[in-house]
């Protein structure tokens, strides 16, 4: 039983649920039915994923000390040449199996959660249909065995994200946010597609296994193709692909869509914009890691590392100043993904050199759990208080006790305090970064402190910060919402030490190796200390209402103000698009189009109609005339022949 033929059902079940709920929307007016269809399909997919993971990691995955890839399903769609074809397939390897587990777990939890959160919403079945569509696309993306399939589902993921952000389509801000997310990621995807096509041309294949094989890598090394600005074609392709990944993963400077995406319902933020879709960029780089590592002397990986580290810092600084709790979490997501990118960027390839890669994947795994938890908990809070803003909260501990504890666990996890999940993954990232470059390491180290600070700023301001009276006392009254939160809370506590060493599962060469966690090494102590400092500062400033925050803000002056306004990146983009592209370039083109092109088209159209009016008389309905035309036709054809031959 190790042919993995069941794997195809993992994406197909959510697809079936989507088709059922989407096409027959009006027959599912009753909430429980729609919810149970979604939950059932995802539940089965979840169980299948866990079984796959068990089979792969513990039973039949390893042969000769190495994880071997399986291709249980493969269908050739378009054949271009002997080597180049587009397939649809499912590739089972350590990364994809890990992603399967992450995606199905979070999706399943969110499906359960939404039953409570979306209760009473008029588009309930539609919501579940979109959720299922997303799960289908994401699962097919992670299972893809070639770049083109990744691209197809990459776009589908983008579409479902667009649909879900704009779920409250009567809200103008939601529409604006969904458009923004779609356009920004599409802009990045343009580079992605260009990269894929370059790869297809210069490496001669889209197949991931072939691309990553030593043979292809050597061939690419020997045939670099045309060189542009000192970089070979394939290096450029990889940079372009990374831009695509950076768009989806909200890396600076393509991050502007992510905070706005929080306009979607909170379960969506948890599923898509925190745990699964946004890590697609990380996944993409990890998928092509050997290619990134060996092509162009790892130049692209250096870019990945720098972009990752900078985004981590940039987002963390903004997160310090935000007031909307979902936006804080959004920037925190961006910052953590920056970590993952950084980890991939600093990683080596073989054996213990591959720690960075392993740590990046590990962090992806643990981050998915605790970030989903944070968002789901935030959903409960928002649901209870009916506001997104911290100023409307405070002293919620006694109203929402379970949420309080779970939020605390997640905050400790993201701050990197042992033994919570985040500690294990984050520490390995810092380890790898330290070996690579001191500046990168220090950025990561500093961000760890910032993270602890802003997370506990959030935590204290929500749950403590004095007493408060609410018009409607907030309650945790939905079992459907509490269950996933508690379940993820348990994972947040336990996933770290259970899965350490993670390199037994995921490593760049697919050869499992083991390592020790040195709890008392200076590096670990340092990073735990900086996190504790952050927590301590937050405690001082926010545990009780004080005037420290405003004094600190004043002390930072301009910097605080810029950070609060997200460093004006949005405004910069608006300036470029509105003032320069729209006014100076688009308007003249529009004029030309409207007056010259359209004018010509209208003239042609009118002429056509005029001709058809004028020749109407030929079809008179008189048979004699028809017969006459027939004879004319024969004569005409003979004449045509004469004309051309004599």
């Amino acid at each position, binding site marked *: 039983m190790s042919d993995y033929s069941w794997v195809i059902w993992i994406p197909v079940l959510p697809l079936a649920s989507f088709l059922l709920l989407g096409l027959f929307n009006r027959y599912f007016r009753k909430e429980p039915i729609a919810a149970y269809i979604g939950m059932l399909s995802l539940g089965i997919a979840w169980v299948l994923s866990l079984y796959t993971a068990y089979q792969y990691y513990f039973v039949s995955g390893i042969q000769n000390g190495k994880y071997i890839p399986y291709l249980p399903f493969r269908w050739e769609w378009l054949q271009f040449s002997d080597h180049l074809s587009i397939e649809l397939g499912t590739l089972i390897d350590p990364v994809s199996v890990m992603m399967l587990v992450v995606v199905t777990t979070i999706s399943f939890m969110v499906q359960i959660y939404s039953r409570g959160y979306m209760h009473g919403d008029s588009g309930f079945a539609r919501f579940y249909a979109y959720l299922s569509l997303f799960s289908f696309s994401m699962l097919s993306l992670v299972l893809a065995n070639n770049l083109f399939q990744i691209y197809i589902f990459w776009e589908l993921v983008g579409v479902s994200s667009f649909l879900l952000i704009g779920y409250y389509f009567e809200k103008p801000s939601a529409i604006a946010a969904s458009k923004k997310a779609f356009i920004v990621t599409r802009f990045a995807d343009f580079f992605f597609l260009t990269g894929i096509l370059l790869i297809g041309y210069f490496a001669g294949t889209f197949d991931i296994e072939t691309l990553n094989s030593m043979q292809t890598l050597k061939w690419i090394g020997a045939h670099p193709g045309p060189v542009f600005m000192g970089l070979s074609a394939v290096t450029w392709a990889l940079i372009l692909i990374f831009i695509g990944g950076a768009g989806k993963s909200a890396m600076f400077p393509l991050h502007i869509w992510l905070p706005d995406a929080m306009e979607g319902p909170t379960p969506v933020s948890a599923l898509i914009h925190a745990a699964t879709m946004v890590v697609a960029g990380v996944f993409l780089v990890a998928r092509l890691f050997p290619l990134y590592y060996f092509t162009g002397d790892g130049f692209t990986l250096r870019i990945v590392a720098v972009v990752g580290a900078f985004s981590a810092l940039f987002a963390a600084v903004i997160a310090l100043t935000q007031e909307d709790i979902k936006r804080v979490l959004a920037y925190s997501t961006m910052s953590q993904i920056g970590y993952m990118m950084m980890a991939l960027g600093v990683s080596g390839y073989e054996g213990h050199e591959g720690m960075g890669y392993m740590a990046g994947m590990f962090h992806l795994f643990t981050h998915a759990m605790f970030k989903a938890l944070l968002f789901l908990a935030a959903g409960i809070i928002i649901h209870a208080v009916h506001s997104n803003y911290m100023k409307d909260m405070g002293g919620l501990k006694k109203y929402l006790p379970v949420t309080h504890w779970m939020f605390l666990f997640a905050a400790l996890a993201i701050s990197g305090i042992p033994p919570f999940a985040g500690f294990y993954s984050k520490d390995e990232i810092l380890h790898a970064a330290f070996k690579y470059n001191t500046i990168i390491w220090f950025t990561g180290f500093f961000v760890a402190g910032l993270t602890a600070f802003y997370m506990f700023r959030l935590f204290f301001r929500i749950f403590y910060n004095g007493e408060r009276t609410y018009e409607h006392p907030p309650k945790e009254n939905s079992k459907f919402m509490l269950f996933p939160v508690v379940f993820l809370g348990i994972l947040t506590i336990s996933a770290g030490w259970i899965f350490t060493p993670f390199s037994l599962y995921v490593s760049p060469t697919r050869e499992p190796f083991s390592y020790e966690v040195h709890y008392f090494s200076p590096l670990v102590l340092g990073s735990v200390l900086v996190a504790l400092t952050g927590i301590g500062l937050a405690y001082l400033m926010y545990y009780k209402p004080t005037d420290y925050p405003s004094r600190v803000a004043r002390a930072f002056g301009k910097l605080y103000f810029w950070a609060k306004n997200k460093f004006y990146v949005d405004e910069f983009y608006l300036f470029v698009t509105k003032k320069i592209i729209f006014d100076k370039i688009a308007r003249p083109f529009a004029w030309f189009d409207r007056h010259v092109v359209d004018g010509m088209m209208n003239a042609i159209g009118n002429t056509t109609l005029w001709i058809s*009016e004028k020749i*109407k008389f030929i*079809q008179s309905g008189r048979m004699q005339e028809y*017969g006459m035309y027939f004879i004319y*036709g024969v004569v005409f054809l*003979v004449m045509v022949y004469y004309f051309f031959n004599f």
Partner: protein
Amino acid sequence: MYWDIFHLMRNEILIIIAILTVMTVDLFLSKNKKHHVIRLAHLLFAVILIWSLLPGKTGYLFGHSYLTNPLINFFKAIMNIGVMLIMLQAVNWIKRDLIPQGFASEFYILIWASLLGLNYMISSGDFLMFYLGLELSALPIAAAVAFEFFRKRSAEAAIKYIMLAAMSSAIMLFGISLIYATSGSIYFHDIVNTKEMPLLELIGFVMMVSGVAFKISLVPFHFWTADVYEGAPTVISNYLSVISKGAAVFILMILLFIPLRRYEQTWTIMLYVLAVLTMFTGNFFALRQQNMKRFLAYSSVAQAGFILLGVIGGNVRALETVIYFILIYIFSNVAAFGAVHVIAMHSGKENMKDYEGLYRTNPLISLVLMLALFSLAGIPFLAGFFGKFFLYATAAEKGYYWLVFIAVINVTISLYYYLLPVRAAFLRKSENPIPHFKSDIYTRIGLVILVLGILFLGLYSPVYEYIAEISKIF
């Protein structure tokens, strides 16, 4: 021995058996039991259809009068599929209009007899068999066109059809006799070998091609099309526009590519001129039609022009792309006529204006109509797109870039009028739209198959590969 003969001619023999069976059974049915014929006919034809899908053999009978090979056999199967789909649509019409008059089996007998003629025609190995098949296909259909004798237009259409068909046959027969006079043989394989090319033979050749062009309704031999399609019962128009036209295109290709190969220079010019004329005329006339049947008639004239783009290629590739296109065209056009037919059956309306607001009351049939018209227009990724794309590729491969350019202009024009009914059904609102109706099970099955074909025939590449495979025999 006899089994071999049966195997080579199985399609024709089975159709004859089916005709005789229905005829005999009909004798024993009293007037109020006629509807049993419907089920029997479908059953019989389903058997024929399945049998015809089995791979065919290569061989000849009657001293090369009758030829067959896998490609011809496959084309017969395509025609059977088309006829089956049309029969499914005809059921509600038969039940409502014909059975009260005491008819039912006559429809099947006529349409199968015509199909039998087409089968003989495309299997012909000499001009005699070709001519006989052609006539056998035309005469029963003339009767079928007049089926709704209680409507004046139906009778008028039948008269027009039979008179003009007779005239075209006469001219064609004259052409054939001229060819015989110069080459001394009516067998295709003999004509291949004659070397002279006197002018007389060329005139004969032009006359003969005109006769086939009449069937395909190429301009200027197309005048009967609109009047007959409009007057005839919709299912018969449907048959004329796909099955009879498809078979004529097929035999035209066989004739041009094998016995008349040495006139290639002549017929490419002819086809070029005819294609341009046909596309423009069909499209210009289609622009202003209000009656949906007339509209589809001109659309089918224009489509014939597009088909010539493939025929002009003159090689194996032309053969395969045209047959592939015909297969797709059958699905698209039968679906379009089917939608028009169903709507006309339930509401009696067949003008474009009556379709306004149709989507609100009958969303499913509106979708079928939309898919069919989009496929005819060649919108990706419906089947019609792939069909047209390959036709253009064939013409472009031969270097006829101007022709392809003209075709593209025509597709643009056609896009305009194909969108008109869709706009009426989906975007326009109406005070009194056609009320909601439910069609019977036969129609539904037929339409579902058609829609599936339109959606997936283009995407499922083995179909094309199979046609390409069996086309190599020439």
